[in-house]
């Protein structure tokens, strides 16, 4: 797929009073997350910023909002060079960001939230009357009927979002960055938000609008910028673009990623999940099965319910309905210990918080999941830990010593420690959630190799990933989840980026 023809030189670049981003680059440690990102937002314009998870959208918006500083590149805003040192500086300059996770204080009133950190005072006393007065002016401007006295906790999510917008308005924001504003909104609430955006737009405000709901983009955006792998890959001068075309831009084509060859799975079903529904409604009625030697990919947007699903299957979170069986036997889902005994193990999403204990040595981390091996009598000798750790280190090619703290390892090696923790049992079902998140491209190939090996040895493997290419390259089949619902299971032959993204954004 060729993309360059969609990048047109913007005639007015730099000459308007809006925001102009030129050549932004940013790396976190050795990982480059943003390369030469450039685009414009003119006054009174809504620009949609689209891309897969990890494409660099959040990094760009965080730079504009002052949370990160770029390694190189420039931004101009209202005709002047703009380099905010902090979110406060960005707000001062008239740029606000409404985060997906709302940053409100639930036990303070609406007015207090609007004025937090800059409470109005009279003679040194907080002037509630003035704050309530001003806050309600802004709330009315948004067409919102809530009392400024009300505690934020008592408001619906949509109303809380409005409070954030009202706060930005009292800060005289001229550019608002929305990060997935509609992710938690119903259609009526979305319509209200759009109406407000149009109204503010008519007053000359600009918006950078990040969303995964592609179908709503045409209704709100004036132009579209698409990112992939930290680069801007397309700038469409109108939002009236077929969704399929946008998805193609977002997904792109694989260039140099190597995935190990897949072996055909056995006939025998190992894992069977029936009508599983979570207790907190993060997913509903999920049913699928995985055969021995098969790798099932689970794709979907962040927040779609993928992580919640695999955590529930492995007993980490509670379910309200449904069953999970391993080798035909129903597993009692009352905690990770029971799931582990049944042969299901999870390499969790957040390696540093859930996978390894950073202060403990590799050996101690490995012993944690393998006490039947290293401490079958209940006694655990340092020699046994060492022998076990050295075997695992050799088996997975971990670069580290058994007595080295896990926190000193690179991400890839930490991930191998988490995998090694489970491999010796051996498990029947091996589930990996975002196995290569935050791991450099070079080290990923080694993880893929390990995952393919797990399947080859006859385990049923599930890989959850936001990296589309990874899911497609690794899996025999791909299940797509969107907003807590299973949207389909695609065979390897029919699974391609466009098909998956269409389901994932449905």
């Amino acid at each position, binding site marked *: 797929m060729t993309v360059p023809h969609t990048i047109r030189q913007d005639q007015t670049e730099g000459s308007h009073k809006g925001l102009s981003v030129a050549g932004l680059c940013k790396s976190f440690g050795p990982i480059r997350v943003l390369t030469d990102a450039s685009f414009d937002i003119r006054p009174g314009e809504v620009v949609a910023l689209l891309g897969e998870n990890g494409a660099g959208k959040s990094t760009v918006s965080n730079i504009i909002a002052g949370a990160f500083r770029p390694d190189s590149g420039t931004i101009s805003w209202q005709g002047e060079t703009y380099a905010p040192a902090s979110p406060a500086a960005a707000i001062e300059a008239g740029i606000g960001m409404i985060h997906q996770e709302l940053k409100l204080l639930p036990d303070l009133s609406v007015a207090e939230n609007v004025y937090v950190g800059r409470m109005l005072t009279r003679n040194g006393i907080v002037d509630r009357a003035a704050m309530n007065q001003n806050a309600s002016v802004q709330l009315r401007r948004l067409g919102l009927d809530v009392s400024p006295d009300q505690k934020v906790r008592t408001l619906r999510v949509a109303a809380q979002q409005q409070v954030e917008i009202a706060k930005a308005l009292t800060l005289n924001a001229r550019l608002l960055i929305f990060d997935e504003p509609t992710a938690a909104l119903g259609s009526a609430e979305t319509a209200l938000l759009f109406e407000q955006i149009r109204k503010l737009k008519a007053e000359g405000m600009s918006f950078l609008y990040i969303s995964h709901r592609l179908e709503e983009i045409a209704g709100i955006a004036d132009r579209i910028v698409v990112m992939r792998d930290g680069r801007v890959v397309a700038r469409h001068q109108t939002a009236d673009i077929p969704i399929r075309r946008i998805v193609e831009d977002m997904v792109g084509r694989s260039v140099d990623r190597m995935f190990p060859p897949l072996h055909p799975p056995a006939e025998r079903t190992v894992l069977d999940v029936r009508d599983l529904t979570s207790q907190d409604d993060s997913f509903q009625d999920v049913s699928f099965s995985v055969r021995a030697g098969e790798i099932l990919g689970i794709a979907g947007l962040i927040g779609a319910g993928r992580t919640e699903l695999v955590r529930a299957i492995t007993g980490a979170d509670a379910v309200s309905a449904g069953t999970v069986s391993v080798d035909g036997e129903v597993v009692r889902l009352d905690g*990770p210990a029971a799931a582990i005994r049944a042969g299901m193990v999870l390499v*969790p999403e957040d390696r540093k918080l859930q996978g390894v*204990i*950073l*202060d403990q*040595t590799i050996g101690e981390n490995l012993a*944690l999941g393998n006490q039947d091996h290293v401490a079958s009598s209940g006694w655990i000798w340092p020699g046994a830990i060492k022998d076990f750790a050295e075997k695992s280190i050799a088996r997975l090619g971990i670069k580290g010593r058994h007595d080295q703290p896990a926190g000193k390892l690179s991400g890839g090696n930490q991930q191998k420690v988490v995998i090694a*923790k489970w491999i010796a049992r051996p498990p029947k079902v091996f589930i990996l959630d975002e196995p290569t998140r935050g791991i450099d491209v070079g080290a990923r190939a080694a993880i893929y190799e390990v995952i393919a090996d797990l399947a080859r040895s006859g385990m049923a493997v599930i890989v959850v990933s936001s990296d589309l290419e990874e899911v497609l390259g690794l899996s025999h089949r791909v299940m797509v989840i969107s907003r807590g619902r299973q949207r389909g299971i695609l065979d390897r032959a029919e699974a391609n980026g466009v098909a998956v993204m269409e389901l994932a954004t449905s």
Partner: protein
Amino acid sequence: MSSHMSEAKPATATSVGDMRRSAAAFLFAGSRGPLIGLVLLCLVLSVSTDTFLTVRNILNVMDQITVIGIMAIGMTLVILIGGIDLSVGSILAIAMMVMGYVGHPDYMNLSLPVGILAGLAVAALCGLGSGLMITAMGLPPFIATLAMMSVARGLANIITDGSQIVGFPDWFTSLSIVRHFGFVSLTVALMILLTVATGIFLKYRATGRNLYAIGGSPEVARLSGIPVRRLTNWVYAVCGLLAGLAGVVLAARLDSVQPSSGLGYELDTIAAVVIGGASLSGGVGSIGGTAVGVLIIGVLRNGLNLLGVSPFIQQIIIGVVIALAVATDAWKRRAK
């Protein structure tokens, strides 16, 4: 600690050397700083007083630290899993009062051994109560044990309406007085035995290692299949039990029990554990370190008394020692 040592050693080091190193590392893991502090403290006191370095005085110090020493074992377990127990002083008191009430001739008179068992059982139940408040009700350990501290103190007072019970059999008081083999009383022996046993438990039992895992990251531990809640309940129950045992030891030393016993002991105990290198955020610490911490507090008190320093100034000095010990620990960590 051991990793530093193995880094420094030549590749040809013998396994005997390894074992000796790992034995030393085991006893005082993470407590090299406090250990040096203790040695320096002893040197200074030996030089500046005539009486510090005498057998009699050293035995005296051992007797004095027994109560805090036994409580500090339980507190180490609690702090290792990332918790805190403010109720140990009150639990000590309630265990003493139950023991006296059940065992003393003036009250229930069910014989002293039965009284001791009853006191220990109540202490363990109080600890379990704290554990359940944390695991079942979701209270933060600070709050749960603060509540237990108040409840247990109140119950201790109710038993005899605030009055003390005096006079126990000779065999009981002699537990802490008679020095067997010329140097060790049974209560001191008990403390040493419990310290070593807990040290072995923490180092060589899978369950002991699991406590470190819980303190290091409760979520990692849970996802690894460790029964975090059950172990948490156990740890608080054991901490309560040991506080009760410390109460029995204190009763033997005083030949009496009173409901106001152990006021403020929880803070001394926590101080000893923290001086010994344990981290209040959990996952770091050792029994060897705690033993050193207990000794530092005991030796410091004893030495300051020998030097004739007023008790008020002693409080200040101990406060400064706590701050310095933890600050050096924090500096070391940052330097790493």
